[in-house]
């Protein structure tokens, strides 16, 4: 691994991220929140300067090496960039009075589209800050790096490795052979959907400010809401339906949606195995959840609420249309289970992803068949395509590490004083980038009461969960650090 290259490219990314502060700056000025405006301006300047310095620290050698970026360097850049960006994005929260741990938690929760919050009292903070909070989710939803790959000519070639390091799911699927164009097309679709949802929410009765904030966090499968009661604060069936539709879209594969739209061939959607399973799980879970909470209201409301909550959790958005902390344990068990499923690969959703569950189930079945027919050739297939063995193996390893991380983090949180349900649900909700858990971290609660070390651990859980575990763990291997010493030629790139 060549540190100069990693520093250089991370610098490029951080420098551009500085420009993002212009948006909340404008909003803060609009609402005459001058103190916050100063915070955004200052954060922007600091971020840009640090990025610029890092960019130049790499020197000329790094600039030339960018085309020969190796996979491990791509992973390192993405992991480092996410940490740094989260740190810079936390500066406005610091300014607003949060402690460093809380500011980092809130910032990471935003960028990783988790939606877990440490804010106790929403009335203390300005509209500019809430806008920034929603916007970080929107940026993180489709991938900050993907956005920069799309817009930065410097990353046209080396961008390939970092694009896939950040993309979600086991398969590197593209809509164009060029990685920049792929990133640009996906971002365009994402932005168009955001505009559509904003208009729909405005028509359903939200103010423009609320409509934009919620569209940002719905399509990103994030779940931050400027309203302290989340969606439950609006008490509007129309708003819930709009969000239900767009949550479903946010949890489905954007590349697939793009292809179906571009080709005007919607059979692509109905024939996609992952999308079908995803829809099936949503319907089944809605059915079970409706039964579990049947006595809580009129049938129409119960089914809508169940559908909303199922989608909110499976897509890892984390909105609440009711306080599901008040529900019975059966209903909570269903929601907890959904946290471990997640949306589709290539979506804005977090979690282990539906496709990994499909592959794991199929490969288990094939192993069972192999005991009956030891000589059989039993490939794992998705649709009609054979999934290469190394990807299936990667999925198994992913689940292993995912559950291992879950166990370790949950144990730490519980040992540091949280009750069992809080500890488990808080870990599942942060590792899966869902947001709210149960008990004290429930939809109307917050994470601020957890032990400070727990909050740090959960911040890391969000980071690891968003980058899909392996990306982060790979760069912890000593080998990854040593590799550069004996293979420093750029052509060694594979």
């Amino acid at each position, binding site marked *: 691994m060549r540190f100069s290259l990693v520093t250089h490219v991370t610098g490029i990314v951080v420098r551009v991220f500085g420009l993002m502060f212009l948006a909340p700056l404008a909003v803060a000025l609009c609402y005459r929140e001058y103190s916050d405006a100063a915070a955004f301006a200052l954060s922007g300047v600091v971020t840009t300067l640090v990025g610029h310095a890092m960019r130049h620290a790499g020197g000329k050698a790094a600039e030339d090496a960018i085309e020969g970026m190796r996979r491990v360097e791509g992973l390192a850049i993405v992991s480092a960039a996410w940490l740094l960006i989260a740190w810079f994005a936390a500066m406005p929260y610091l300014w607003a009075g949060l402690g460093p741990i809380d500011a980092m938690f809130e910032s990471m929760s935003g960028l990783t589209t988790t939606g877990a919050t440490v804010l106790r009292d929403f009335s203390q903070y300005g509209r500019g800050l809430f806008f920034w909070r929603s916007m970080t989710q929107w940026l993180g939803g489709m991938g900050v790096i993907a956005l920069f790959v799309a817009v930065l000519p410097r990353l046209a070639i080396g961008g390939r490795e970092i694009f896939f390091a950040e993309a979600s799911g086991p398969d590197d699927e593209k809509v164009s052979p060029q990685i920049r164009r792929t990133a640009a097309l996906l971002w365009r679709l994402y932005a168009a959907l955001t505009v559509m949802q904003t208009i729909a929410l405005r028509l359903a009765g939200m103010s423009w400010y609320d409509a934009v904030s919620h569209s940002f966090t719905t399509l990103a499968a994030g779940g931050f809401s400027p309203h302290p009661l989340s969606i439950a604060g609006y008490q509007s069936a129309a708003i819930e339906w709009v969000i239900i539709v767009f949550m479903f879209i946010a949890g489905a594969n954007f590349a697939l949606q793009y292809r179906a739209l571009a080709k005007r061939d919607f059979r692509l959607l109905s024939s996609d195995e992952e999308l079908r399973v995803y829809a099936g799980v949503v319907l089944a879970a809605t059915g079970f959840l409706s039964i579990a909470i049947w006595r809580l209201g009129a049938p129409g409301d119960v089914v809508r609420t169940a559908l909303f909550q199922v989608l909110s959790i499976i897509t890892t958005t984390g909105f609440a249309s009711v306080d599901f902390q008040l529900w019975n344990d059966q209903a909570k068990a269903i929601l907890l289970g959904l946290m471990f499923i997640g949306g589709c690969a290539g979506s804005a959703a977090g979690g282990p992803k539906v496709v990994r569950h499909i592959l794991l189930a199929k490969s288990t079945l094939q192993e069972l*068949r192999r005991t009956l*027919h030891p*000589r*059989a*050739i*039993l*490939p794992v*297939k998705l649709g*009609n*395509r*054979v999934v290469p063995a190394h990807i299936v193996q990667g999925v198994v390893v992913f689940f292993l590490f995912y559950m291992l991380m879950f166990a370790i983090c949950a144990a730490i949180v519980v040992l540091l004083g949280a009750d069992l349900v809080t500890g488990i649900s808080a870990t599942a909700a942060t590792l899966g980038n869902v947001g709210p858990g149960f008990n004290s971290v429930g939809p109307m609660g917050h994470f601020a009461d957890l032990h400070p070390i727990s909050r740090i651990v959960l911040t890391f859980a969000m980071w690891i969960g968003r980058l899909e575990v392996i990306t982060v763990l790979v760069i912890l291997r000593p080998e990854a650090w040593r590799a550069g010493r004996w293979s420093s030629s750029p052509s060694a790139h594979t």
Partner: protein
Amino acid sequence: MRIVIVGGGQIGSSLARTLAPDHEVVVVDHDRAVADAFTAIDAEFIVGSGTSEEVLGRAGIERAQFFVACTGLDEVNIVACAIANRIASPETICLVSRADFLPGSQGHLEQFGINRVLWPEAQLAADIERVVTAPGAIDAEVFAGGVIRLLEYRLGAGSSLIGVPLGQLRLPRRSLIVAVKRAARLFVPRGTTMLEAGDKIIIMGTPEAMLEVEAQVNQARGGGRLKVTIIGGGDVGLELAERLEQASTVDLRILESDPGRGELLAARLTRTLVLNGDGTDLAFLESEDVGRSDVLVCVIDNDERNLLASLLGRQLGVPKVVTRVSRPANLRLFERVGIDVALSARGAAVASILHQITGGTSRLLAVLEHGEARVLELTVKKDFTATPLKGIGTPEDAIVGAILRDGTAIVPRGDDRIEPGDRILVFSTREAADRVQAYFSGTGN
């Protein structure tokens, strides 16, 4: 009629042998050694490239009515057809060995001047599929767009059809036993003929009647799913498996000894169990319970191994064994040692080409029992006097299997009449074919 054949391999020589007595046949092949095979055939042999304009000119391409390209190389065949079409305008028939060249929705080979593309392996797979899916039957054909079916059965010792004169047998109406093969001799039975165990019988009839026949012949076998084992995952094995997968009542497994090929099979096939192993390995066959299959299809690319695998299958108790034979000379041998159906890709291709070339007023619908019998479709001549069948002095060794009139099929009894203009399906032995044609249509070859 002049026919130019490019490629003197087994298909080329087999075609030439059949066509030479009646037609001017010119065979072009660049391999001098091949010429020896043609010394006994009354055809002209030209040594040279089939893709050379000059050589084709020497072969008299401008006077040729048919041009068959059947070298072992697809690309050569396509180019040869294109060149032939450029110099003259014969009907071109092109043999290929890969599915990519088959006309898709675009019919992309037409622009090369190719009238018909033939993939022998696919033809064979289609033939095998028909045999496999007809329960109990060892051969099966469909005629006249599906209104008439033909099935061939081997009678077991316990069959209810044995020991009774045919006239007294209660076969379903609209079905007819058209031939009996006993000890290598094929004949058209009379009302007094009695069937014996070990006979092969050929029955024609409407699809509904044939369902009853199937039920009557296979009293033993209950319903349920058809278990089919294919040994050999080459082109034919894959094509056959893909066809059989369409039927939801078939349980399919395919044995392939090459792991790489096995991966490809497993990728292409969705419901088939692909096993990596040698089909001639008895322990392997036993461990996978191959003996409990309803049908065993051996399509390995090697006659000896095919025969071994088939015989092992038979020993393990598979009731129906279908085998591919590469060398036509082996066909009869295979059936003699107990294989129910032996088929050859080249045979299927040759029959198909012959059908196209010698079409005319009579259409050769099928060649059965390795050429001993055939089914012809004839149009009855205009001056034929309408007579009941029993009054017709039909040529010996031929029988009218069906009358197609006004879009319906009649499987005739003695009282049915044949009228001028009818289309009839006639079953006949090879020797009687010409006489049959002359009798009903007034023309012979």
